[in-house]
């Protein structure tokens, strides 16, 4: 079983990430992936010109590794990967790639779903949206916090 976490300021290529992950997980029947893309519109409803993910080297990687380890502990998955960008991301560019591989697809779906809900609230980033009105530091939405809460009940998400 393997947990892989990668944080990079460079572009993220989801197709290359998927190819690499499929090589790692050879023989496991079910692979679920999530790709998160920078939306073209800011929370204020203006065209987004850039999304900046500030990070604290060391601490940020540890938050990602902790989330990946929790997924492996909670669900019968064989392999988990989180590849995350930091720094300046252009609109419509990928920010995050998540993968979960399991013998059975239910576990892979639950683990990927869990990974994203945790990442959206607990990953060690500070996000700034740049639009025509200026730059705005943002926090998780109420929706993100609700999604995160789903997993605090035993067997949540079923």
């Amino acid at each position, binding site marked *: 079983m393997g947990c892989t976490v990668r944080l990079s300021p460079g572009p993220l290529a989801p197709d290359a990430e998927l190819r690499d992950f499929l090589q790692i997980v050879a023989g496991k029947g079910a692979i679920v992936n999530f790709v998160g893309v920078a939306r073209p519109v800011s929370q204020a409803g203006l065209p987004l010109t850039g999304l900046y993910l500030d990070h604290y080297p060391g*601490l940020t990687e540890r938050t*990602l590794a902790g989330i990946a380890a929790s997924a492996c502990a909670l669900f019968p998955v064989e392999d988990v990967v989180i590849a995350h960008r930091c720094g300046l991301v252009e609109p419509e560019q990928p920010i*995050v790639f998540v993968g979960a591989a399991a013998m059975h697809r239910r576990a892979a779906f639950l683990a990927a779903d869990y990974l994203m809900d945790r990442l959206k609230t607990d990953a060690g*980033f*500070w996000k*700034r949206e740049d639009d025509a009105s200026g730059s705005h530091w943002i926090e998780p939405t109420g929706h993100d916090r609700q999604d995160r809460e789903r997993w605090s009940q035993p067997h949540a998400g079923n």
Partner: protein
Amino acid sequence: MAIQSILFFGYLGDLLGRSRDFDVSDDPVTVRDMRRLLASAGDDVAAAVLNPCVRACVDGMIVRDDAPVRRGQEIAFIPPLSGG
């Protein structure tokens, strides 16, 4: 008298600089002592380091206010996480 570099992230980095040196006259013993020493550096710094939503990190780990601080450790203050 000693110089302590403090790291700031997120909006605090915009406000106070991503790394800023402070004169720290006494030896702080806990994170709480460190917050009090830094607060004298100016209103903007005080507002940041006394805000209970702003967490302290020692050597890259988020810690509670009663955590010990030793000279030479990396100290950072971080706003609430945005998530990924």
